């Protein structure tokens, strides 16, 4: 079953779905960062595709020449892929003012790649009512610009349909994650990441279908994954399933995560209630969703991590922070302190984007697992 997702991931970043969608004359819009509402792109009839860097750790000569060596390897990896023409299939890009690496990536993208449609959303760092007002105005503007670009209005009806579709994805992913709460989950952490990866480059209609089948298969299967300790992976953007796999190969049982490519991506549904336009409902959800380390106060994120630890009975946390990922690096001392208070140890790893977790990292994971076992 997992093979089906792997097959989609095997053509990257332009999957067969992307090709098919393009050949039907429709637009493909690249989005970067979980603060960009995908539903709006979907409701416009375009295919939303998540912009990420290379699937593995790469030598980033182009990325480094343009973004300099001290910007995170994620933004350098994304830019390099684009500079080498791998994102030429995109008709537009949408990003947010999320962090320095990403905002500069888009500055250079505009200048040196120059995709037709280019939009940056100002994303407030707070959850206050006025922050919501500002964010809604940004989302509204994005919708208008996209309508102009596509040449057709994005109706409320279409938005509601998209919301329902995406909420279904979220509900299915929650079901998938719930399976991981058991003592011996039927699916590994690295497999889950592969599933999610595929979802970023295919229509959600097809993804939901596959996801439903997968959950069916897993619910009925006798497959069991055992491990030496239950782990959660937290920190910077992570797309290479190899990284999780190398932890699991050493006996770590990765049961959940706080990653913008997984839990933080799907965690909250859009709530359509009376008196709210679909756009308002979308904006509310995206700003209030499981926060990135960029948001203030950090406790919002820490509390959610602690909740995950309880729900999934996590015994140890692996923090993987890409070098120069400042929001996460700044939060690390505070996070360690919070988790220490509930007696959960943290393994803090400095990584480069796309790392496979081999070499020195593997050695440190091994020592961490031994330490966790000794505590039992």
């Amino acid at each position: 079953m997992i093979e089906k997702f792997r097959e989609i991931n095997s053509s990257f970043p332009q999957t067969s779905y992307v090709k098919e969608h393009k050949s039907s004359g429709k637009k493909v819009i690249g989005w970067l960062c979980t603060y960009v509402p995908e539903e709006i792109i979907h409701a416009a009839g375009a295919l939303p595709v998540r912009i990420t860097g290379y699937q593995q750790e790469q030598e980033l000569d182009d990325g480094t020449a343009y973004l300099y060596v001290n910007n995170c390897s994620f933004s350098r990896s994304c830019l390099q892929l684009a500079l080498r023409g791998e994102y030429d299939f995109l008709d537009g890009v949408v990003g947010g003012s999320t962090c320095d690496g990403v905002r500069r990536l888009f500055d250079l993208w505009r200048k040196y790649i120059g995709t037709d449609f280019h939009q940056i959303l100002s994303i407030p760092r707070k959850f206050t009512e006025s922050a919501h007002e500002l964010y809604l105005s940004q989302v509204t503007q994005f919708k208008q610009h996209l309508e102009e670009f596509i040449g057709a209005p994005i109706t409320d009806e279409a938005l509601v349909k998209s919301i329902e579709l995406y909420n279904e994805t979220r509900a299915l992913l929650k079901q998938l994650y719930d399976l991981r709460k058991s003592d011996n989950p039927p699916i590994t952490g690295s497999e889950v990441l592969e599933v999610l990866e595929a979802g970023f480059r295919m229509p959600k209609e097809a993804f939901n279908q596959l996801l439903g089948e997968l959950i069916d298969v897993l619910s009925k299967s006798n497959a069991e994954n055992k491990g030496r300790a239950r782990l959660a992976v937290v920190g910077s953007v992570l797309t290479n399933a190899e990284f999780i796999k190398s932890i699991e190969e050493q006996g770590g049982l990765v049961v959940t995560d706080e990653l913008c490519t997984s839990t933080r991506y799907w965690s909250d549904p859009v709530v359509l209630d009376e008196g709210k336009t679909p756009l308002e409902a979308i904006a509310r959800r995206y700003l209030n969703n499981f926060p990135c380390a960029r948001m203030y106060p950090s406790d919002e994120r820490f509390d959610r991590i602690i909740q995950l630890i309880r729900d999934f009975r996590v015994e140890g946390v692996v923090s993987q922070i890409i070098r120069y990922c400042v929001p996460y690096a700044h939060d690390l001392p505070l996070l360690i302190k919070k988790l220490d208070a509930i007696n959960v140890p943290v393994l803090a790893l400095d990584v480069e984007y796309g790392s496979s977790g081999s070499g020195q990292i593997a050695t440190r994971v091994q020592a961490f697992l031994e330490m966790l076992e000794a505590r039992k």
Partner: protein
Amino acid sequence: MMDGSSNKIEAIIRACSVITRMNKALPDVPESKNMYYKMLTDYFTRVQRAKEEGNFLAAHTVFFPTEILYAMDIVPMHTETTTWMIALFTGEATELVTAGAEIGLASEICTPHRGIAGAFSLKNALPQPDAIVWSNLICDNTAKSGELIAELSGSPGYFLDHPFQESQQERKYLIGELKGMIDFLEHQSGKKMNWDKLSEIVAFMDRQIELFREICELRKAVPTPFSPLGFMDLLTMDYFFPGQPEAIEYLETVRDELKAKIAAGKGAVDNERFRLMSLFVPPMYLMGFLEKLSHEYGAVSVTEPFFTHWGEGKLDPNKPLESVAQKAYMIPEVQMYGPMNDTKIQRVADLAEEYKVDGAVYYADTGCRHTCALIKLVKDTLSDVDIPMLTLDSDVVDPTMTSEEETREKFEGFFELLEDY
């Protein structure tokens, strides 16, 4: 808190008084220099004595609306610049940066922020602030550091969220954020916002910006009358003294000195050979050396696109809070915040022409991601108008990054290149 440390503010005050005494003994020290060190001494003395004088002390990050603190009679302490000054005057910054690393901050966190967090983790290094106020201008480090230092110092904090772009809604949001901060400060300090005083400060600030622009104009003269790295002193005016009468007096003195020099046909260096554009901040611990090198080679920084050129606009004392928000968008450094569009980047090439620049120097601070990410863009822009650029890997605070020797080697190579160009 970790073990005690020596009081860094006292060390800065001592260093300033030594410099003042030395300057008095020297001939030809311009009046503005003496004023500058007196202002620094007064600033840090206020910080140092805030507690005993019963004043409310607020630590704040860079590009902060300090006008509001002054209007509320709150003593400001600028966190990043204090770390710079510790590096510049006392050479004791390494201790703070190391302390920052010890509390778990990665080496990728820039040294001014690692240093300031380190300082707050050490007993006695800095006075305990009554509040920490910070904003996300101008990078993720500023956005994140306040929360950590509030935790370390045990002081209450307010985060001022500065929007990314300039839409009407964003200005409205910023004004709301400013109001929120005023409420916070009133609550914490028991002091009331003095709106008349804020209006007065805004009027002064507008004058300050005007004087800045006048000084920039004067620097266009050939030879340029303004000292090779004097722009760093200018920056301090807005960092420490926005809308303060002493800053106006200082800037007027600087302006008059420049006018006198131009009238006498005198340049800042004896034999002006290279007119430079500076981008970002030179290493503080090399300032003395760079000054010497400038005189040796007749090299003078005549313009700093993202440091001394204020954005367009005017402040209105009748709308004080709106003006404080407006000013945030006009700050020279903030011109590189928000999306870097063609107009903003073209300004770099225009300034090179207006100021008859021979070459540009980009101080690539290892910890400063958002400025380094512009190196390629600036270089390509300048190359279109045939201006070569030297990129100097460095660090604002950490002296282990670059030695005088290698810096000299690079500058000399660059001067050779300019000579042949």
